[in-house]
């Protein structure tokens, strides 16, 4: 168990290094970083001064060493737009993004798991067909577009929900729904097929034949086994939501990291963009470790197998 955790940690640290390398190289190797970050109308002298100030004239290895050292300290330089350190600004926005992602995930789980369970136990039934339709739609509707349409109808036409910002609990409803819809579809699909698969397993038949109550079989044998793939998919989907919130936050002017990312790309504020990319990766990597832990708690085979 400890060895397992340790190797996961080591892998994650390695990947984090990879992320830092990628983020560093992308900005520098694909062109002139000074020209990339400066406004298009800057004069050559301005760009040269900026290049000197940012240390872009130093050898690449020196720059990378400096970048890593600063990054470990959590320093990604100053935001070019705000002229203040980038990292604290990103951390400040974290709360709003996590709130949105958690709300979306809860919505997806509260509706998705029961629908998937019912669908798996009664394939071909009404709930199953509704569930499969929802799953297909969640997969096919571009959620950023659905967000626009919902603003138009529920926000402007009916006036039920605010169309932007983060004030009351009302404001979280639409963005969370839109962000969670593809995840809802995934959860329905996965739960359904997991139930179908497990119901056909030998140990379920054994449980039936030794006279266990169906209720006991469902809660003890089936649900526990459905939980295993579910936990891993929920972990992955939460990471996806942190990335996918870029679009949703931009549409609903949600004051989270995604909205900040959209703006900072518009401003060509690359120190800020880098800070967001690295910080989100750190969260997702940490989340992966937590998921793996949860996984091994539910499934003893993983705990003892290694």
């Amino acid at each position, binding site marked *: 168990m400890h060895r397992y955790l340790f190797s996961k940690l080591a892998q994650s640290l390695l990947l984090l290094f990879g992320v830092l390398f990628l983020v560093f190289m992308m900005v520098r190797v694909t062109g002139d970083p000074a020209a990339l970050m400066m406004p298009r109308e800057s004069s050559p002298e301005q760009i040269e001064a900026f290049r000197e100030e940012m240390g872009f004239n130093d050898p690449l290895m020196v720059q990378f060493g400096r970048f890593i050292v600063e990054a470990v300290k959590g320093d990604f330089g100053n935001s070019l737009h705000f002229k203040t350190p980038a990292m604290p600004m990103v951390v400040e926005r974290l709360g709003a993004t996590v709130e949105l992602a958690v709300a979306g995930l809860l919505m997806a789980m509260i509706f998705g798991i029961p629908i998937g369970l019912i669908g798996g136990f009664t394939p071909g039934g009404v709930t199953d067909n509704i569930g499969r339709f929802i799953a297909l739609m969640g997969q096919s509707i571009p959620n950023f*577009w659905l967000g626009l349409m919902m603003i138009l109808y529920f926000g402007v036409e009916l006036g039920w929900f605010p169309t932007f910002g983060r004030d009351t609990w009302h404001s979280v409803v639409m963005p969370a729904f839109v962000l969670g819809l593809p995840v809802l579809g995934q959860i329905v699909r996965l739960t359904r097929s997991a139930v179908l698969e497990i119901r056909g397993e030998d140990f379920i038949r054994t449980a039936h034949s030794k006279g266990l109550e169906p209720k006991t079989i469902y809660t003890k044998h089936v649900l526990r086994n459905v939980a295993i793939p579910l936990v891993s998919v929920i972990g992955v989907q939460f990471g996806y939501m942190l990335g996918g919130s870029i679009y949703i936050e931009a549409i609903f002017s949600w004051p989270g990291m995604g909205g900040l990312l959209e703006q900072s790309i518009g401003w060509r504020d690359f120190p800020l963009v880098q800070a967001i990319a690295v910080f989100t*990766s750190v969260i997702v990597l940490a989340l992966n470790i937590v998921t793996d832990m949860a996984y091994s708690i539910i499934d003893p085979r993983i705990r003892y197998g290694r």
Partner: protein
Amino acid sequence: MADNTTTPKTVDSLLDTEKTFKERVAYFGRFLWRDRSGVIGLIVFLIVVFAAVFAPMITDQSPLDQDLRSSKMPPAWQEEGDWAHPFGTDSLGKDIFSRVLYGARVSLMVGLFGVLIAGTLGMLIGAIAGYAGGRLDAAIMSGVNLILSLPYLLFVVFIAAVLGRSLLNVILIFGITDAPIFARVTRGEVLRIRESGYVESAVSAGARWPRILFDHILPNLLGPLITLATFEMSRMIFYEAGLGFLGLSVPPNEYPTWGNMLAAGRKYMTSYPWMASFPGLAIMFTSLGMNLLGDWLRDVLDPRMRRSRK
């Protein structure tokens, strides 16, 4: 094969080499008919391809011509609409119907070439890992799994922002970032096939590796990979629109895409909703079709899946 007549008439695999061409077509047709949603998916996909290929013949409006006198016209069925512009016009008087049609070209191109690049790269990496096994396999696969655990969309947006907006960049970004998924599936299949009885018997019968690779492994790989390619293509079309929406895909004055139409229409959402509605509907229509098609392909090409469905 003489003993073909003695075996039951049920057709087990599409890629069974002993079937004649006619039998295969009949098999495909039967499955298409049994699963209606697959038919719908196929038709939808063909409509999109048709629209993309024959766009200049379907409409005589240019997708790029501006006409400020007829700007912000509503769709034809609304008041003040005109059948010259069935879906209305945008803020600069460009015809939305023709932009949606021409936009299908970009979407399909991104999906097709993106999947081709990702599929080739991924197959290569996955096949090497699966065939080599041992430490090389472990190293490659832990790299692949770790890349897959990163916030994908965020990095796509980041890379697109650095590289700048062009069609080629978008295709390259998707082609490279999507390769790990193909690598993982390929490797899993290669492992499974390598352990199978028929490969073992071919090896013991003295078959050389090109024959094993092309006659035994590749045909069995194709099914899962084609299914994956359909889903990934639909995903790429989706994400290209997302990039366009953030202003990171093909610029709107160069070529119309569904994404950049959405981005342009977003500003006029409340007063002229049709500017953003139609490109969104086009994306939804396309990815609905491709998802249905993918589900169906998975059932047809993978007999194991078919059995578990019953």
